[in-house]
């Protein structure tokens, strides 16, 4: 999962910046000339830490007067630690921010508005993917962070399984019907024991980003109204998108019910599914699994081709003692140099347009599909109360729609829409 932001910012006055700088300088002097140290906190696995650490090392070489320490946690520990750190007034100077959660943090006034720094340095944000930058912008023009990388959802496929079944590879002309037709040919009981051992399609149903928000959009629906005050999931189009996912499992039977792989993990990665709708973060895992991997855009629905985009941002703690150094570091994270290092991991798309169109698009087979997806992608919904909204929504969808077909998507949404709107109204 990943993050992006929107924020309401107050321009920091130059005097404040100067004063902060002076205090930092005096503190440094008092401590016997220690160089400013900033802590950069991220969530991720060891390979992501390694990649970010390599970027930090280059930064430190270029800025010998700034020390950067990287700390890493798993996803859930990360947010626990961050919140306690923020509550105690001792949060990391720079930290990773998931797009959808940004408004909840920004609204609570713990993030530094980078707009004054951007203006002062004449930093050109238009060289970054616009949608991703927008995720960390507030209505009043504040910029409370910059995107560090970007995730996009695609259709992965196992070429060997397609060849064996004599089915043509997915391409950018595919629609939902093509997906179902191919999925049926690829769903097989190979040893005749009446249990399926090769599924047509696999995805995760517990978060909208993995697949279902894209289905809602592809069907012409949306998750939230443009003003963010109500949910639009109760439209026929949105319900149709959710219903399609339930149908893939229980009617078309080309997808395993979620509980089947809840413990063993990704069926596609294990060679038990021919296709998977999921995010860019899986590329290194799938390549390591030795799958003959193909990458195609998500099949189009009635309203055309849409996918989900979600940037991870780098934000600065408002009470950071070294905001100048923190800003310098954030700026470096978005630089072509750092972005080219990041893209080697293949786990996310770079957010620098020149890197995206140039070295990234040809960096591995299928990278072009990711690069192209930005043109037709929608931002993952990002709003205050996101976690409560999605927990309430997923509890209903998981229990009654995806984990077991107790209700149709329409019935489930009707049951929960009042509560969802109440959550949005509370924010």
């Amino acid at each position: 999962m990943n993050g992006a932001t929107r924020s309401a910012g107050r321009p920091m006055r130059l005097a404040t910046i100067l004063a902060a700088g002076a205090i930092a300088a005096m503190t440094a002097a008092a401590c016997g000339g220690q160089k400013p140290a900033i802590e950069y906190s991220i969530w991720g696995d060891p390979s992501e830490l390694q990649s970010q650490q390599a970027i930090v090392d280059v930064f430190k070489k270029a800025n010998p007067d700034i020390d950067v320490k990287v700390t890493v946690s798993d996803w859930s520990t990360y947010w626990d630690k961050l919140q306690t750190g923020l509550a105690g007034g001792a949060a990391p100077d720079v930290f990773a921010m998931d797009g959808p959660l940004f408004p909840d943090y920004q609204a609570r006034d713990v993030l530094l508005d980078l707009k004054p720094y951007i203006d002062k340095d004449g930093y050109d944000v238009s060289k970054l993917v616009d949608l991703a930058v927008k995720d960390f912008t507030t209505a009043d023009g504040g910029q409370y962070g910059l995107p560090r990388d970007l995730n996009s959802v695609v259709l992965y496929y196992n070429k060997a399984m397609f060849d064996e079944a004599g089915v043509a590879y997915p391409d950018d002309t595919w629609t939902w019907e093509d997906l179902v037709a191919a999925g049926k040919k690829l769903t097989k009981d190979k040893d005749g024991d009446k249990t399926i051992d090769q599924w047509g399609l696999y995805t995760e149903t517990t978060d909208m980003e993995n697949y279902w928000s894209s289905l809602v959009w592809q069907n012409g629906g949306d998750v939230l109204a443009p003003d963010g005050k109500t949910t639009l999931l109760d439209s026929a189009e949105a319900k149709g998108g959710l219903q399609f996912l339930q149908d893939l499992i229980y009617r078309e039977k080309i997808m395993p019910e979620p509980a089947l792989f809840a413990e063993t993990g990704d069926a596609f990665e294990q060679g038990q599914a021919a296709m998977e709708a999921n995010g860019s973060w899986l590329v290194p895992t799938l390549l390591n699994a030795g799958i003959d991997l193909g990458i195609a855009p998500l099949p189009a629905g009635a309203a055309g081709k849409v996918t989900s985009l979600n940037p991870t941002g780098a934000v600065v703690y408002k009470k950071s003692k070294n905001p100048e150094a923190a800003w310098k570091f954030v700026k470096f994270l978005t630089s072509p140099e750092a972005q080219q290092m990041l893209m080697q991991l293949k786990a996310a798309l770079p957010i620098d347009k020149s890197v995206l169109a140039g070295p990234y698009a040809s960096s591995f087979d299928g990278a072009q599909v990711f690069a192209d997806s930005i043109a037709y992608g929608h931002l993952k919904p990002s709003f205050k109360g996101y976690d409560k909204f999605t927990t309430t929504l997923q509890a209903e969808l998981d229990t009654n729609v995806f984990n077991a077909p107790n209700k149709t998507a329409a019935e489930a949404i009707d049951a929960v829409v009042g509560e969802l709107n109440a959550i949005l109204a509370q924010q």
Partner: protein
Amino acid sequence: MARRRGGPLAAEVRWAWLFLAPTIIGLALLSAGPILATLGISFTRWDLLTAPEFVGFDNFRELLGDHRFMSALRNTVLFTVLSIPLDMALALFLALSLNRAIRGIAWIRTSYFLPLVTSATAISLVWAWIYAPNGILNSIIGFVGVPPQRWITDPFWAVPAIVFMTVWQGVGISTIIFLAGLQAVPEELYDAADVDGAGRWARLRYVTLPLLTPSLFFTGILGLIGAFQVFDQVYVLARPGNPTEATITLVYFIYENGFRFFRMGYASAASWILFVIVGVLTLIYFRLQRRWVHYQ
């Protein structure tokens, strides 16, 4: 016995306080303060990051109308009611079976204790495999023609499935406590019972069980407090999603609101409800001990 100033007893009391001091100081500083603070916080709307706002009893009122909280409460109570008797009955049976001198008894006893020194997370992972739709449990019941069940996601089976796993893990500690209790029963009492013509059942009913009541009491209280705090198991079993209303427990509800939904005040209110429930039940349990617990 009358207390003599400066006598050996007073010295013992001083030593007792000295040995207790680390625990008491630790509790006072690290637990009592935060516990009282949460009482204050429970009357506020507080997101951890901005200033709290006093809201009176709003949090408590809202909790009573919150169906996710009610599910958490129901699941937790059901978990407690099912797990404690099952744990104690099974532990008693095991302790009675293991309380004999046979070859390799130490190994057998150890094996029952092993799950206890394994992390709850690791155990939950293994059980998640057992409970999976294509897991061992469904294969076994498949042999006798029972259709596969959704052990974790079906609201009917979810809590019993977690109870069974938890009892399997925790039964070792109760067994060890019962074994210690059994071995403290004086042999003369059994001899006397034999003389009175007591059979096996009578020996159990009139000698063993009464003398085991302190152990039963002790494991009961530990079980009660532990059961109300069940967390790890649901956290792991619910992956990759969050617990649904079939599996959410009170402590998960508190965690979720405090650390996910920016509602520390609400979470504190829920934790006070939990505290009061556990407190009242413990008090009742202690009151009742006079009726059935025999100390030698």
